[in-house]
């Protein structure tokens, strides 16, 4: 294969496809990083919320609700789910000393249940909603499906919107304060309960949104929640716990590492390489690429 061919057919598409995958990962990681960074809760059931979003989209889509409406509707429907989860599971253990561990454990339990419940309701088989934007475009000889182009664009919009809310409003500081010292925050007038459940629900809604958006590409099945979650966790860590920009940079970077490693070394070793990157990051820069959330 000559060099030009390699560039046009192999390297360039690899980078571009890596980008699309990166956006998908960032979408999933976004809610995770917010819950982790602001509430200090490791939500192990995030992947299952992502799955719930996808299944909701599937079920509502089957009832002839338009995809464009679903993009709004599903996250809105996820909000109460997030609130209830927070009230019933997170709140009771939130103010214990080992919050990290206990919340990690309850949400892990929830993940086990959610996966099984989805299977109970929707069956074990793989399903897929139709692609909302069919067709493909060719840019500089690289073929890219239109839906992926759309995904990259909407991904950017969502990230920007979320970053605005978290960084440009007082919300970030408020949530962090409430998470750290609920009594003191409450004594400054922060409506602590609402802040907790609101933040959690927001993260859950983002997971649901990711589910709606990614289902046409990645299909829907009960265990789909496990799919992105490892990578999303890695992204959250490498990006700096809770940092939105960190998650974006790390998401795009790691998927490139993955894409190029699968090309140059072998796809088999991509997982170890990506995890190795995470481990190396933790060892040399435990705080991650960027600082924590809540700093303006």
């Amino acid at each position, binding site marked *: 294969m000559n060099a030009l061919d390699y560039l046009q057919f192999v390297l360039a598409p690899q980078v571009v496809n890596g980008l699309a995958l990166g956006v998908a990962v960032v979408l999933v990681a976004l809610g995770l990083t917010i819950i982790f960074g602001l509430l200090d809760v490791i939500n192990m059931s995030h992947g299952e919320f992502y799955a719930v979003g996808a299944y909701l989209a599937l079920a509502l889509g089957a009832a002839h609700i338009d995809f464009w409406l679903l993009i709004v509707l599903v996250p809105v429907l996820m909000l109460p789910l997030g609130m209830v989860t927070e009230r019933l599971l997170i709140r009771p253990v939130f103010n214990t000393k080992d919050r990290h561990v206990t919340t990690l454990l309850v949400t892990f339990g929830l993940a086990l249940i959610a996966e099984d419940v989805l299977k109970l309701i929707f069956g074990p088989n793989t399903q897929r909603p139709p692609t909302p934007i069919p067709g493909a475009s060719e840019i500089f000889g690289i073929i890219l499906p239109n839906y992926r182009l759309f995904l990259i664009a909407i991904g950017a919009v969502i990230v920007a919107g979320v970053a605005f809310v978290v960084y440009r409003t007082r919300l970030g500081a408020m949530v962090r304060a409430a998470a750290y010292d609920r009594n*003191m925050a409450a*004594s400054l007038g922060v409506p602590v309960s609402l802040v907790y459940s609101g933040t959690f629900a927001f993260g859950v809604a983002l997971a649901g949104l990711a589910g709606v958006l990614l289902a046409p590409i990645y299909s829907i099945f009960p265990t789909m929640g496990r799919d992105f979650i490892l990578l999303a966790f890695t992204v959250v860590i490498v990006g700096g716990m809770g940092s939105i920009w960190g998650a974006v940079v790390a998401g795009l970077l790691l998927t490139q590492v993955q894409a190029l490693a699968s090309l140059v070394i072998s796809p088999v070793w991509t997982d170890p390489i990506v995890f190795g990157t995470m481990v190396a990051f933790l060892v040399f820069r435990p705080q991650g690429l960027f600082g924590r959330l809540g*700093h303006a």
Partner: protein
Amino acid sequence: MLKIEGLNSHYGRSHIIQGIDLSAAPGEVIGIFGRNGVGKTTLLKTIAGWVKPSSGTIRLGDVSLAGLEPDRITRSGVGLVPEDRRIFPGLTVEENLTLGLMQVRGRSASAGRAVISEIYDRFPRLRERRHQLGTTLSGGEQQMLAMARVLVGEPQLVLVDEPSEGLAPMIVAEVFAIVRELKERGAMVLLVEQNVHEALAVTDRFVVIERGRIVLTGEAEDAKDRERLMEALAV
């Protein structure tokens, strides 16, 4: 008007506040004295809603505070400067201060900024350090921040727990000046202090607590009362 009657609170099974009655009128500063571990802090925490009273009433104006969530109590006009300052780590000085704005609902952003800038004028040290993480401040600076944070909310009732703890004499004077200023504005202050002498200079009335009960009350101006106070505290 603050009126506390028959207040009791517990930590688990230990009965800490044992039937306290206390009232304050606008513009009144009440000194709360007592040895370590008698329940002074617990009393303030109970009023602020951190500890739920097991019985008794707490009324501020016509609002009954007992049993409310701390944020509701705050919005009813109660501000707490806690004993160990409780500066939020991971938040800058300015963020710590802006959070104080949450105490009041419906204030415009520009009004909020004005209040903050006023506070900075009073505590120039905080302006200097505004972008530093709150917890990296020195002990004294943290105390200033803790007070400043509550002041931006302009509360009716201010609960101050050992504010002079760890402060240099110059700053101690400053702190008591703030208390005096609060009083002049018409706020009520419950001031817990070990620094009895300086505290008395700003208080109207005082109470002494022993094992969760009020064992002595008196007027700060009254020489006899003061004598009894010194005796009770073995100063």
